[in-house]
């Protein structure tokens, strides 16, 4: 019965994707990508991936639309050239052939939802069985993310950090760019209703972000989602009051500090466990028992993840906003 909704949503997803690629106006593409993200989040929830759906919600609803609009404010929104005819025809042929090959290949895939599919037999049962034993936390996803696959997450955090540095080095320091601009931007300060309501909601968004951060062991959530939510709150403030005020509230040096200290905290936990006699990121040595050590470790590295993600996302926003006038 539930599959019917999923089929509906997936058909809508395909239509949205087609419209996104075929539309000539980039603003329309960005708006449709908002719909795309909403549909993907609902589908993830139907497929039992609550944590992933929350991440998609936090990133897709606020931040990615704002980023794309910030970039579009610097360019022409109309797509002028369509490209030569042979390019379009030949790429259509390539795409059609590959689609047929991929669809043919799906018949070798295990059936949808098969509990005996190879993917579900190898390590997953061990994880599901051992997360409560080793860590004593109910959310298996957080357990795997923080502990069993801690190296993986460490790498991802450094990728996010590097992307933030890359954006900064490409677009320049937001504060300097802002000073060179002819017109200072005051945001939506003259729009009373959005301003009042938006300001009222910002504390709630931050509060919810902190809840997601620290309750992530018990319900869907964790550092990545919380970072995106808190960054969305700050970005909302910057949209409402202008970036200058947002930069007064959280200056760039604090953001740099957040970016770096989050990644450092994560790495530092690993080094600390080395010095305390364990392996890199072996949290067991942090506490008196295995469970308490693991819980301390997960709490610390989730805090690191949250700090880095918040810092990077707000920095990226400021970097774009200082270039454009958004």
């Amino acid at each position, binding site marked *: 019965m539930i599959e019917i909704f999923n089929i509906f949503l997936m058909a809508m997803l395909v239509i949205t994707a087609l419209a996104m690629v075929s539309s000539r106006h980039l603003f329309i593409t960005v708006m449709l990508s908002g719909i795309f993200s*909403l549909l993907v*989040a609902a589908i993830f929830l139907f497929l039992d991936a609550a944590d992933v759906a929350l991440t998609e*919600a936090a990133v897709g609803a606020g931040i990615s639309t704002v980023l794309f609009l910030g970039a579009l*404010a610097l360019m022409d929104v109309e797509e002028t050239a369509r490209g030569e005819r042979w390019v379009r025809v030949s790429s259509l042929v390539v795409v059609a052939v590959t689609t047929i090959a991929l669809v043919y290949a799906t018949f070798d895939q295990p059936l949808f939802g098969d509990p005996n599919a190879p993917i579900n037999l190898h390590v997953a049962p061990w994880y599901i069985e051992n997360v409560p034993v080793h860590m004593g936390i109910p959310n298996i996803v957080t357990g795997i993310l923080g502990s069993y696959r801690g190296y993986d997450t460490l790498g991802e955090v450094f990728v996010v950090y590097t992307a933030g540095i890359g954006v900064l080095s490409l677009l320049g320091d937001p504060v300097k760019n802002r000073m060179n601009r002819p017109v200072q931007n005051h945001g939506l300060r003259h729009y009373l209703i959005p301003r009042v309501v938006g300001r009222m909601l910002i504390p709630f968004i931050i509060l*919810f972000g902190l809840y997601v951060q620290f309750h992530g062991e018990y319900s869907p959530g964790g550092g990545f989602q919380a970072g995106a939510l808190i960054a969305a709150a700050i970005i909302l403030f910057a949209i409402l009051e202008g970036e200058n005020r947002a930069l007064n509230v959280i200056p760039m040096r604090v953001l740099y500090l957040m970016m770096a200290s989050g990644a450092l905290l994560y790495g530092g936990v690993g080094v600390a466990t080395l010095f305390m006699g364990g392996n890199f990121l072996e949290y067991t040595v942090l506490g008196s028992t295995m469970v308490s050590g693991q819980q301390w470790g997960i709490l610390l590295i989730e805090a690191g993840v949250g700090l880095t993600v918040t810092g990077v996302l707000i920095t990226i926003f400021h970097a774009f906003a200082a270039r454009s006038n958004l």
Partner: protein
Amino acid sequence: MIFYIVAFALVITMCLALVRAVRGPGLYDRVLAVNMMGTKTVLLLAVIAYIMGRPDYIDLALAYALINFIGVFAVLEFFRTRESQLALTSSTTQSGQEKALDEQGGQS
């Protein structure tokens, strides 16, 4: 059963909003459709939580309800700055870059 009916109504309405988003003559119709989709998704997530018997899914609905409207504000800001930029550029002469673009558009 009533949950399935409500969820079905929500999905159908999402389809209608999608039609509006894909077809919608103006830019604003698309923003409107996105906004509608947002509210429908919040409700759909809440109803899914009941259908699946998972009360923790309501956190997701809460997250969407809180941050969904940021996109609309960004759109408002986008058009506001674009208006002021257009006013700035149209009052002076056409910039060199735009001229070069026009010439190349004419050639090709």
